[in-house]
């Protein structure tokens, strides 16, 4: 792992970063940068976009073209960026709240539209930044500041949602599996089309403290103990899968990429000679 090359992608002058000690977001950033280094990406041709949230602070620390937008809307911004300059590698890093609460519509449409963007969803099952309110992925019964009696509504399965919306690549890892994150991100970025990597992570500060996993390591252990690879999961009963985190690649299909189609259209109507 060429660590100095990874450090080269950081805006080190802002370190240490604002994340809490042990916050999973840093583990994901690390894995993402390893993947980018590995793929030989150039910083000035790489765009990292995000919405608002602890997770969404990530772009500020990456020494690339970085875009910290409004809450939930980053995929729509990223769509504009990528269409305007298809040469750019565009990666959108979002929290579970950002991506699936306020940003849910942009997420499913990005899945459907299939523009060559990679979405990384840092799912810590909570709104970390604003103080631990329930998110659309907080499990039933878990406590949150807006769920003082426990959450009532069923959470999203982000990967199922992405698949249902038509994404061409969908995978899930956890922060207990940094190399898997790295691998899926690498695959996702390489994929010509819209690709989603959900990374299950923790916010021990806002979620863990209320839900019996107060230390960072409690969460890592929880993820280790409860993750099941999807090939194994497919042989398990629903009961056995109760409470498990299924990880792995769920979708990897070839679909026409939007911008390629648009380029053809420009060609057809003669817009390339103008």
């Amino acid at each position: 792992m060429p660590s100095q090359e990874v450090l080269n992608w950081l805006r080190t002058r802002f370190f240490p970063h604002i994340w809490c000690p042990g916050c999973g977001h840093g583990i994901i950033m690390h894995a993402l940068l390893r993947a980018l280094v590995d793929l030989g990406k150039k910083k000035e041709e790489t765009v990292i976009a995000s919405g608002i949230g602890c997770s969404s602070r990530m772009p500020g620390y990456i020494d690339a073209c970085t875009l910290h937008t409004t809450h939930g809307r980053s995929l729509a911004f990223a769509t504009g960026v990528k269409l305007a300059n298809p040469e750019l590698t565009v990666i959108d890093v979002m929290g579970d709240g950002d991506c699936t609460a306020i940003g849910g519509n942009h997420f499913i449409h990005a899945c459907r539209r299939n523009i060559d963007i990679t979405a990384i969803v840092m799912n810590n099952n909570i709104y970390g930044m604003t103080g631990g309110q329930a998110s659309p992925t907080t499990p039933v019964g878990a406590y949150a500041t807006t769920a003082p009696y426990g959450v009532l509504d069923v959470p999203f399965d982000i990967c199922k949602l992405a698949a249902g919306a038509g994404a061409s690549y969908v995978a899930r890892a956890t922060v207990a599996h940094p190399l898997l994150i790295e691998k899926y991100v690498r695959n996702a970025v390489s994929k010509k089309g819209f690709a989603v990597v959900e990374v299950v992570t923790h916010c021990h500060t806002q979620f863990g403290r209320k839900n019996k996993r107060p230390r960072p390591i409690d969460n890592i252990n929880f993820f280790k103990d409860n993750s099941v690879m999807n090939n194994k999961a497919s042989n398990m009963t629903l009961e056995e899968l109760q409470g498990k985190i299924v990880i792995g690649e769920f979708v990897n299909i070839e679909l026409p990429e939007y911008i390629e189609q648009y380029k053809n259209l420009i060609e057809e109507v003669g817009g390339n000679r103008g």
Partner: protein
Amino acid sequence: MAKFVVDVNEKWCKGCGLCVAICPKKVLEFNERVKSEPVRIDDCIGCHQCENICPDFAITVKEAKPNA
């Protein structure tokens, strides 16, 4: 002699304890400033788990240069 060097950047380490807990060889411990420190470096197997789990980019694992 140790085969690996485990560098901890104390300025960035926040003492979260993840590396300490995750190291399969118990190489790392907190020092009095509650920063991670390799205390059993000879046991290190260079698995990079500490490096990869560190959310603060505070650990680098390298092979020890034999004649350094």
